[in-house]
Each structure stands twice: as structure tokens, then as C-alpha cells.
């Protein structure tokens, strides 16, 4: 509360005091003492002892860690330290997360407002079992759990003056910022996603050979005319949902401190924060969520997904027609679900519940932390330089009112910064400060449970990698050297590295 007030006051007080990305206005922070900071710095230092697991390593989310079940429910449990009382919000939030939205008008007033254009009718449909999505299995498969973002280059007047190096873009004039492949009756859907793959063989040390599939994307069956000639498309898989509240509670200052935009330390790795405009706090904030860190908070991310993916309005993004453009008149004029007692299609209570749910999906405990091959793989992970971006440890803010996320030692293996990953992975579509070749380091916790939870092992932003090894081999740009080391290392080290990742 005091922070929200401060943000408002600071803005009023003039530019010298403008609240910026180093602030965490979404959190009610109890400041760290110098002594505490020293303890945190010590505990965060990377280990050099690979003879045994570190203390607490088996609990990647600290006290919020949950038991690693052996079934597909492993990502669906609430934070391990959640109170009975908060389990109610979690469960009701889960109900809304699973709920199927229906078209307006409908007798079930509390559930209407779908679309008119949408990618899915519920959150859960893309975030199946709260895990990661996957590309369509074939031409007849629904593209659900994957979609295309779209935009066109903007002019200098389209940027955000308060954010340095902001890359101005505009929504595609006909289609908006996202292509929706479903629509209500009487409305054309926007497109169908076509994917084709080309296999590329990659020789590895020891006579091993890997094969990568290089995707090509096309938007076909376009329902509203051709795309703008400068349209930039970015394919996106639904990311896993675990541990988000903890990522949200890492001090922005800690993330920013690790940034090295000009590679002053000369390690070949830059690391740039994405800075985005918060509609919630009306100020620039550190981007944390989304594949290019385009959104600052879980609440904003949730509202954005309600609007773009399901066509549901909230107080943050109040358009009842979702993200239909001015040119999509039929969509804008269709019946909508807002304007009743909820005001928006999802009111602040509902938005808050889904936000709470998303903030509290627990990270499962590590398995086999003391296994010799896992420890060997951990050593390889560290010595290869993977930890330059996949930062093992953070300590969250001490927080009032958020005991689940408060002051936890967490092991997400991400720096939440943007890195140039080379032309092979590039979507060539900027997002805020992120360039067309940059991606946010994704957290690796829970990655070894992907097959158990989601029934597949498709990784990276568009699911092109069919295994963890393939995902590593796609790394380029700043991570080219690390990728090459994995190609050249003895096969047993490579196997150990994969084994370590599977234990996360």
C-alpha cells in the first residue's frame, strides 16, 4: 500500500523522483538489514563443492516447495507453506482457472463474455495440468497451447519516452497483437497456424549425432485480409505455471544488479533487463513474465491472458471485445459480457483469485540430489558456464501479507534477464526493450518433470526442441560458446548434464 502511494507521489513530485524499474510497487516489502544482506550474499554465492548436494538444494522453492508426486498432478499443488485460509482462495482460483467461459448473452451471467475471438475457452486448456504447452502434433491438430504474436514496426512517436531503448512497435492494423484461431459463431476466426519442420543433423563428440527440427511458421486461412507487409510473427508456447509468485518476489534490484548490457566483465554474456510500462502502477517496471519478459506482474500477466487469449475484460484491460482491432467492427459490435453487476467480464475479485492461484502453484522438491551422476552433471552445468544466465539461487524479499513468498531461498536457475540467443532461435519481433534475437532466461525448476506432467518433452519458446539436449543445442548468440562445449565434451559428461537437468 505504501508503495503504491509512493509510486503516485513520486510521479507527482517530478522526474527526479519518478518511480522506476528498481522499485517493486507490487510488493509490500520489509527492507533488508545490512546484516541480513550479508547473509543473503553469502548463501547466494555459487558453490564450488560438487561432492555432495548443498543444504536446501532439494527444496527449490524454500518452504513453499511441495512434495514431488509421481503422477501428472506434480505442478498442481499449492505452495507448501500456504495457510488453510489461503487454500480457499487457491482452490476457488483453480476453479476459475479451469472454468470454461461462454459466449454472451448467456443465462450464466457469471461465466459469459468469451471472445468474440479467442485462443482457448479456459486458462487450463493451454496450461494443461499447469504444465507447459506443446506445438500441434500434425496438420489436423488444434493449435491450442500455442499461438502467434504479431506486430509491425512503430515510429519514434510510438515508443515510451520514460523507457530508454524502448523499441517502438504497433499492433498489426487488422489483427492486433495476437492471432486467435477460434471465434464465436458468425465471426471469422483470424487464422490457422501452419508449421513445417526441417531436420538438421548435429554431430557430437564420441560419434553421437543429434537431430534438430527447424520450424517454419505460416498464418493461413486469414479471416480479415492479408497481414501487413511488415508484420512480425512470434510463435509462443504456454509456459509452465509453477513458482511464479517467487519469481515475482525477487528484488528487482537483485535482477538489475546482475545486468551487464555492455558486457563490461568481458565474459561474452550481456544480460539486459526488459523494462515495460505497468498499467497497474502507471510507471516503468522490470519485466519478469512472458518469454521476452514483457510483463511486470502476475496480475498484469493474468489480465493480459484473459484479454488476448480468452477475450475477457478486466479492470486492467477493460475492452470487452478482448484485443479486436478497430477494423474488426463485427467483433467489436458483438454482444459482450460486461456491464452487469461484475462491471467487467471478470471483476477484481475473480482476477485476484486467478492471480493468487497463479502465484502459488508449488515447485516440486528435487529428486536424486545426492546421486553421483546428478552431482557430476551439476559440476558440468557450473563449469560449462550455464550458470552465467541460469542463476541457481535467489532470495526473495521479506514481505508483509505474502508469507508464502516471503524471504525464501529459491533455486529457479534464471537471471530473469534478456540474452541474445542468436539467429537460429530469433523471432525477429521486438517486445519493449527486447530485440528480435533476445529471450528471457527461462526458469529451469521442474523441467525434469515435464514428461510426467505434460506427457511430452517439448522445450523452448515454440516447443521445437524434443528433448533437453536438443534445447541446449539450439542455444546460440551469447550462449554459443556454452553450446559448443556441450557438443565437444565427453559423452558421459553430456549424459550427466542431462541427468542433472532431469533432477530439477
Amino acid at each position: 500500500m505504501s508503495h503504491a502511494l509512493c509510486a503516485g507521489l513520486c510521479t507527482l513530485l517530478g522526474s527526479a523522483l519518478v518511480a522506476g524499474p528498481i522499485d517493486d510497487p507490487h510488493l509490500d516489502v520489509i527492507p533488508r538489514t545490512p546484516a541480513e544482506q550479508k547473509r543473503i550474499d553469502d548463501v547466494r554465492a555459487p558453490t564450488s563443492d560438487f561432492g555432495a548436494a548443498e543444504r536446501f538444494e532439494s527444496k527449490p522453492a524454500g518452504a513453499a516447495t511441495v512434495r514431488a508426486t509421481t503422477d501428472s498432478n506434480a505442478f498442481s499443488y499449492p505452495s507448501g507453506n500456504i495457510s488453510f485460509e489461503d487454500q480457499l482462495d487457491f482452490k476457488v482460483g483453480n476453479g476459475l482457472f479451469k472454468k470454461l467461459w461462454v459466449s454472451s448473452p448467456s443465462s450464466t451471467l457469471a461465466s459469459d463474455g468469451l471472445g468474440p475471438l479467442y485462443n482457448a475457452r479456459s486458462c487450463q486448456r493451454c496450461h494443461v495440468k499447469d504444465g507447459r504447452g506443446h506445438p500441434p502434433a500434425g496438420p489436423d491438430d488444434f493449435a491450442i497451447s500455442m499461438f502467434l504474436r504479431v506486430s509491425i514496426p512503430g515510429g519514434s512517436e510510438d515508443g515510451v519516452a520514460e523507457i530508454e531503448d524502448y523499441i517502438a512497435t504497433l499492433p498489426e492494423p487488422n489483427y492486433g497483437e495476437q492471432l486467435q484461431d477460434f471465434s464465436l459463431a458468425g465471426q471469422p476466426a483470424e487464422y490457422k497456424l501452419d508449421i513445417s519442420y526441417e531436420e538438421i543433423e548435429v554431430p557430437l563428440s564420441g560419434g553421437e549425432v543429434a537431430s534438430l527440427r527447424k520450424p517454419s511458421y505460416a498464418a493461413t486461412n486469414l479471416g480479415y485480409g492479408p497481414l501487413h507487409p511488415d508484420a512480425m510473427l512470434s510463435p509462443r508456447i504456454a509456459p509452465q505455471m509453477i513458482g511464479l509468485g517467487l519469481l515475482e518476489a525477487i528484488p528487482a534490484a537483485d535482477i538489475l544488479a546482475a545486468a551487464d548490457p555492455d558486457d563490461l566483465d568481458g565474459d561474452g554474456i550481456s544480460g539486459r533487463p526488459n523494462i515495460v510500462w505497468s498499467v497497474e502502477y502507471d510507471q516503468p517496471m522490470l519485466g519478469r513474465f512472458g518469454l521476452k519478459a514483457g510483463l511486470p506482474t502476475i496480475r498484469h500477466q493474468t489480465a493480459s491472458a484473459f484479454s488476448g487469449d480468452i477475450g475477457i475484460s478486466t479492470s486492467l484491460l477493460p475492452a470487452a471485445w478482448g484485443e479486436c482491432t478497430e477494423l474488426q467492427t463485427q467483433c467489436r459490435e458483438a454482444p459482450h459480457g460486461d456491464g452487469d453487476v461484475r462491471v467487467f467480464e471478470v471483476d477484481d475479485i475473480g482476477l485476484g483469485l486467478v492471480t493468487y492461484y497463479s502465484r502459488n502453484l508449488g515447485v516440486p522438491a528435487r529428486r536424486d540430489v545426492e546421486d553421483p551422476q546428478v552431482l557430476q552433471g551439476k559440476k558440468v552445468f557450473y563449469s560449462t558456464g550455464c550458470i552465467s544466465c541460469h542463476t541457481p539461487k535467489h532470495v526473495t524479499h521479506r514481505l508483509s501479507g505474502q508469507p508464502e513468498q516471503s524471504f525464501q531461498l529459491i533455486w529457479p536457475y534464471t537471471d530473469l534477464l534478456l540474452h541474445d540467443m542468436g539467429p537460429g532461435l530469433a523471432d525477429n519481433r521486438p517486445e519493449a526493450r527486447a530485440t528480435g534475437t533476445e529471450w528471457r532466461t527461462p526458469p529451469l525448476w521442474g523441467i525434469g518433470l515435464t514428461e510426467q506432467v505434460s506427457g511430452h518433452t517439448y522445450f523452448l519458446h515454440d516447443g521445437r526442441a524434443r528433448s533437453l539436449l536438443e534445447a541446449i543445442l539450439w542455444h546460440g548468440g551469447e550462449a554459443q560458446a556454452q553450446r559448443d562445449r556441450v557438443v565437444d565434451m565427453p559423452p558421459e559428461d553430456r549424459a550427466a548434464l542431462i541427468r542433472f537437468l532431469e533432477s530439477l
Partner: protein
Amino acid sequence: MKAQLLGVSALALSASIAGSAYAAEKADILNNYADIAAAKYADALVTASTLQAAVDALIAEPSDITLQAAKDAWLAARVPYQQTEVFRFGNAIVDDWEGKVNAWPLDEGLIDYVDASYGGASDENELRVLNVVANASFTMSGESVDAASITPALLEESLHEADGVEANVATGYHAIEFLLWGQDLNGHEAGAGNRPFTDYSSGDACTNGNCDRRAEYLKSATDLLISDLEWMAAQWVDGGEARATLLADEDAGISAILTGMGSLSYGEQAGERMRLGLMLNDPEEEHDCFADNTHNSHYYVGLGIQNVYLGEYVRIDGTLVEGPSLSDLVAESDAALDAEMLGKLSQTMRRLGQIKTAAEAGFRYDQMLERGNAGGEALIMGGVNALVDQTRSIERVVAALGVSAIEFEGSDSLDNPEAVFQ
């Protein structure tokens, strides 16, 4: 308000006197809890076996009488089973198993024919109108599935939670409930599903087609329920894994009991099963919706929480299982807290009893959920508030006993400097 409080404390007083007969050793409390679990699951198995016999009779000789007998047996089977839900959340072995027995809500079109108003396949769930009863083979997730014979293995391994969609419930009580009652097409009006017995008739008398396959599904689902309950009942007897895990660490065991009570009261029952339905005014958000049995489902969940605290359970044959209880343990150190806990549990049973009473007198749960129905909302919120209130006392019990409520062995936050910064 005053009168209500007086009522509570009077109840609490009498209950606490009745409950103080045992000296409370933690090991004895845990053993009694395991005995009660064993008895409840055994009763669930006995009543499910009665259901199985009734299902066999229905299939052999379909009639209004045999169908009604099967429905009656299903309703009776829910009584002990719902009292076992309190073993969830605290006992991992129950959590890992429960989904195939009592999963809900379900897209019933996966199983059998549905009314046109149900709609077609959705982009959400391609399988929601799969209708296994009518289709001896079909494609699922790009692979062809042979369903010429509807076996327990087909239901459990291929269909249940197919495609990761939790609404694809192919097994358990609610799948059987649908096969006995059919869809509840009454919306917010009174009334349950109304499946004709001729859905199980042979030859020309068969209605809605594929009666033999429907019977096969019902039989397989019932057989599977039996084998699942047999397995769980065996985990709680002497030498069973659930009992052994519980007894391995006394404090963790006590914590498991309280975690189950609190999580079931607050998040699961008050939240997901009651408040959510009221928020959405959706008759689909009704736990036993086909049979219109939600009032009982809620009531027996509440009773299960209460009788675990009291350390007593009245079996379906009238036998009383009782022994040292959490109530005894709390009363030894803090009699007032025990009285408070007993009062809260009684208050919940009063509120859930009001829902049950109203429903049995004709004001059904789906009517209570209707938007703008003030009486229904008051009844349901009465239950929600009582469950929430009792959880606050459960938290106080947790604190008083000095056990960690959210059982997670050895968890250490940084707030434990001893543990992190040596």
C-alpha cells in the same frame, strides 16, 4: 448472535465431558485414527460391494425396481466414503489415489449420450462428446483406440483424464452416478437425472442404443471402484503402508490429521465445492449433481472431519470404533481450546444439517445455487462460514500442540537462521 454463541458453548461443554475418557498418548491417537480409517474404507468397500450386486441385478434384469435398488445402493455407498475424505491432504498415499475414485466435475458426454443442449465437441475438450458407449473404436490424441470391449483397464488407462483434461472423468463414483441417473437437465429446478431403466434393456426394448455396451461400462466402472477401495482399505490395516507411514513419526502423524481436517474444511469444501458454485451460480458446480445428492455429500464430509477429531466412528453396522483422540490430547493441555474446537465442529454440523434438511424437504441444492435466491445463499454461506470458522480453531490447535500444520518434512525457510547460516 448472543443466542447462537450460547448454543455453541452448551454443545461444546457436553461434548467435551463426553470426550475426556482417554489418556492421550500420541501413538494411541494415531493408532485409533488408523483404525477409523481402516473401518471407513472397509465400510466404503462393503457398501460398494452391495452396489456391485445391485448393478449386476440391474444388468441381468433391467426394471424400475432394479434401477432404483442400484441408485439406493449408490447413495448408501456415499455415506461412508464421504467420511473418508478427511484422510486426504495429510496422507500422500490417499492424495495420489483419490482422483480415480471421486474425481469431479466431469464432461459426461465422454461416457454416454447427452442431450442436444449439452453442445458438441469443443476446442476445449475434443473428447467431451466422445461417447464411448456408442463407439467401439475412436481416435484419441492422434492414436486409434480399440474400445470393442469396455474393460476396467480401458477406463483407467486410456480414458481417465485423457489428453490431460481433468473433466475427462471415466472412473469412480461420479461416472457410475451418471450411468445410473443420467444427466440432470433440470437446471436450477428441483430434480435429478432421469435415465430410464430401458437404457439397460436388450433387443428392441433398448433405449438410446448400445445398451449392452452401457451395461459393460457400468459393470467395469463398478468393478474398478471395488478394486480401488480394496487396495486402499488394505493400506490402513496392520502392516499397511498408510498406517506405517502415519505411525513412523508421531508429530508428523498428528500434523497429518490436522492438515487433512484444515485443508478439507477450508480450501476444498468451503472453497471449491461451496463458495465457487455460489460465485458462479452454476448448477454444474454441484458435487453429486446427477443424483441430486450434494447435500449429503457435504454433510458427510463435515461429519468425517468431526469424527476424526473426536476419535470415534459409527460403522455402517452400528458398531462404534473409538479410542484416544486429538480431542483428549488438546483437552489435557487446554480444555478451553478443546471446547472451542468441539463447539465449532458442532456448529458446522448444524449448518450442514440445515442444508441437508432443507434439501430433503424439497429445496434442492441446485435451487439454492440460483442467482438471487437469498434463502439458498444464506444456507450455503452458513456452511461456508462455519467451515471457515472451524479452521481457525484447527489452526489454534496446531499452534497449541506445537506441530507444523503444513506438513513438509524438514522444510526450512531463511527465517530459520540456524538452518541456513551456520
